């Protein structure tokens, strides 16, 4: 399972961190645009950029779908590892949390009657994927996509 945590050997970028409050559909647009800008800045390439933004869209939408009270935070920044550049994005909400992460990470599983592709689909689109969730306190998903 590709559940490795974002590399500890990464150096953090202390500038250019963007935080987006996700409260409604319009914020999803902002998340996508910001991810696009950052991906372009490090010359990620169209296919990888599309994968990153699609994953971001899925994860940000989850915040809208499941968090009660609605809302959460997306934090986007650049990272670097041995000369390779990447985009690091975290998606955090204080919603109900996921009781069985294993189930949620299976294709087709959904508690909301949708296609249930959000989490496992998003995971396939990025290079590093980490999820923490606690019932009653919320969920945090962190993804990293590197330039090839």
């Amino acid at each position, binding site marked *: 399972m590709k559940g490795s945590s974002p590399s500890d050997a990464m*150096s*953090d970028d*202390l*500038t250019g961190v963007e935080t987006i409050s996700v409260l409604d559909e319009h914020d999803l647009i902002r998340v996508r645009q910001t991810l696009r800008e950052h991906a372009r800045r490090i010359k990620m390439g169209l296919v990888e950029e599309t994968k990153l933004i699609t994953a971001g869209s899925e994860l940000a939408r989850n915040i809208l779908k499941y968090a009660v009270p609605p809302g959460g935070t997306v934090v986007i920044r650049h990272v*670097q590892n041995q000369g390779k550049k990447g985009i690091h994005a975290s998606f955090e909400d204080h919603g109900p949390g996921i009781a069985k992460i294993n189930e949620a990470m299976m294709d087709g599983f959904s508690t909301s009657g949708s296609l249930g592709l959000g989490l496992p689909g998003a995971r396939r689109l990025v290079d590093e994927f980490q999820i923490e969730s606690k019932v009653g306190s919320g969920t945090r998903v962190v993804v990293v996509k590197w330039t090839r």
Partner: protein
Amino acid sequence: MENKQNVYRGMMNGVSDRAVILLDRDGNIREWSRGAELIYGYSAGEVLGKHIGILHTPEDVTEGLSSREFASSSASGCFEAEGWRVTKSGKRFWSGVVVTPFGEPDAFVGFLKVGRDLTREREREQSLQRARDEIRELSTPVIRLWDNILALPIIGTLDSMRTLRLTENLLEKIRTEEAGIVIMDISGVSAIDTQVAQYLLKTIQAARLMGADTILSGLRPETAQSMVQLGIELGKIKSRSTLHDALKLAFSMGHADVSDLSFSGGAP
């Protein structure tokens, strides 16, 4: 004590192909070795007391490279990276840098930076990469067989990187040629395990989303057998054992004008 300092300084300056630089905790240059002079072009007098950022590119300065280096090396004991540096004359070179915290545990002095010029290595690596890319390109060309029909002969092993390139090429060709049929010849694929089958399937699905049907050709009987044993199902994908038969099928499916063609041999 005096003697030891001279010995150490002598050692530091004896290294001519590495820039050995000592920084204080704020990142200002405290010691500048002979190697640093040779590599950067600045004499000690010109840089002592100045911030290490004078050696960085403007972009790196904006992005706060030095603070990142210090934070990382303080946290993990060592920071190693490659990046562009700038000499006195303004020339850029690709440098390999190691930054370590310096001083006694309870008497932190600053940072030790050892860097070397990796320009030649980098150029070599880049031309190697270019050669690898060209080989990859040559090994999966997409050929326009007829008005509506593309051929994609796959030879060798498939990994995720190669599959992505292959798929990108194919989809681009489908778009520019407005092709509706792809003949994917896999007679040259070394081994088809579940992973490879997945790669092929994903390529076929992506082509389908762009309106193109795929016909597999060159699937050898032994390969077909092992696939079935592995439980690999190719579902609705049409398959023919020879390119000839695959082409015949393509013509019967497509909208190409074949009124002046005739087929000889092969199954009807």
